């Protein structure tokens, strides 16, 4: 849409440019974790934090009452320097009892930057990177809040491509047997940055699986068009060859996931990115070993042998 259309539409406080965005790989995780984080932040600021202050006996005028950003959750407890840790169930029960905010629904929109708006909460103007908000108090029903001062990113940012993607680089060391062209991956190293990894074991598993997929693309998987290929309806895994354990450096793939820039860096999500650099790394390694630059995939054992003459 053009800027004029967006500006006019945004005056309707219930309008958003898109209900949901693409969910491919990195961008899906980045957008969805953002909406969830913003909802959690509203619940914390206007439900759990005031409840905690009451449990700690901290008066509203006490300067510590404004230090909600210093609080941390550790082992299911709310921790503030110099105060007794509070277990989440107790804080939540107090939030319910005093009719604080106990639920929040947010909508967010990103176009190289987050849309931002202001919402009235507890007599304050709450400005956040969201464009719609509903809350519930205690055991009550959700109610939409009216936004003001909505700021949408300019429409000409649509010209830019996908953003907020994780990045990954891969190194491989290969060995090629001259007599047969057989290739063995001796060692591989991938370095990945994805912001905050919410479940590191799953991130690592995806990185390992992505590397295996690249090995298939680069060295094994062939899908010729027309009758000689899977279009003839007769292909199965005997013809479409994917990587097995024996094709991979099972104990020599190191994945380094870089730490977030700071403790507040958001998750970026990662998925395809851990596959992408491994295929060109392998083909570049084959060039380095043989002097022959292959320009289509897969590069099979027979092709490598042919290039070694």
């Amino acid at each position, binding site marked *: 849409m053009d800027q004029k259309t967006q500006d006019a539409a945004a005056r309707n406080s219930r309008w958003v440019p898109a209900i949901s965005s693409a969910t491919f790989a990195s961008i899906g995780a980045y957008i969805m974790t953002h909406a969830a984080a913003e909802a959690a932040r509203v619940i914390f600021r206007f439900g759990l934090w005031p409840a905690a202050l009451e449990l700690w006996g901290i008066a509203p005028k006490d300067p510590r009452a404004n230090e909600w950003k210093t609080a941390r959750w550790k082992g299911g407890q709310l921790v503030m320097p110099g105060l007794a840790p509070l277990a989440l169930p107790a804080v939540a029960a107090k939030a319910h009892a005093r009719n604080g905010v106990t639920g929040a629904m947010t909508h967010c929109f990103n176009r190289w930057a987050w849309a931002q708006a202001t919402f009235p909460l507890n007599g304050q103007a709450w400005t956040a990177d969201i464009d719609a908000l509903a809350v519930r108090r205690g055991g009550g029903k959700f109610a939409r809040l009216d936004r003001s001062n909505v700021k949408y990113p300019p429409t000409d940012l649509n010209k830019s491509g996908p953003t907020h993607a994780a990045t990954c680089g891969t190194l491989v060391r290969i060995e090629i047997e001259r007599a047969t062209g057989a290739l063995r991956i001796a060692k591989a190293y991938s370095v990945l940055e994805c912001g905050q990894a919410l479940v590191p074991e*799953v991130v690592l*598993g995806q990185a*390992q699986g*992505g590397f*295996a997929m690249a090995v298939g693309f680069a060295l094994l998987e062939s899908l010729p068009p027309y009758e000689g290929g899977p279009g003839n309806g007769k292909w*199965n895994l005997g013809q479409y060859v994917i990587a*097995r354990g024996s094709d*991979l450096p099972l*104990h020599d*793939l190191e994945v380094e996931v870089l730490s977030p820039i700071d403790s507040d860096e958001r998750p970026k999500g990662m998925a395809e990115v851990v596959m992408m650099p491994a295929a060109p790394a392998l083909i570049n390694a084959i060039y380095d070993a043989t002097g022959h630059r292959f320009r289509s995939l897969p590069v099979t054992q027979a092709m490598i042998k042919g290039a070694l003459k």
Partner: protein
Amino acid sequence: MLTVTINGRAYGPREVRDELSMNDFLREYLGMTGTKFGCGAAQCLSCAVIIDNPDGTSDTSPTCIVPAVSFNGKSIRTVEGHAKNGELSPLQKAFITHFAFQCGYCTAGFLNEGQVLLERLARNPVARADLEKTIAEALDGHLCRCTGYIKYHEAVRAVILADAGRYLSRA
């Protein structure tokens, strides 16, 4: 006619047509859907079950293109038979703690293969230096598209190393 013992329970005798696959018998006739159907060409082994032989050894077998009647008189284990009284087997627990699987489609096959390997090593331990190669050879027939295999291998190895006296030789 088909009579088969599955996870210690006898099924049959039952009339089934000759070309009924063991995979269809398990999944469609018995509702035991833990065993999966992947390629239907005995390539991926997501359909594999354990056959317990009379001599005390065990093997895995595909079920996708193997007739059910060829299992007549046999005793087999499927993924549903590993847990006892609601408690997961050591290998099942290791798969979980090591995040060994992702979508789970190949997992029953890997579990059966890994379990057969553990039982084989308990009868014939191998040297520690040969362990990674032994695991790799045992699991290499199983295809997985999600994981890149590494955590499956680490989980199996962890179970073996946690009970090295049982699975590894002194050599």
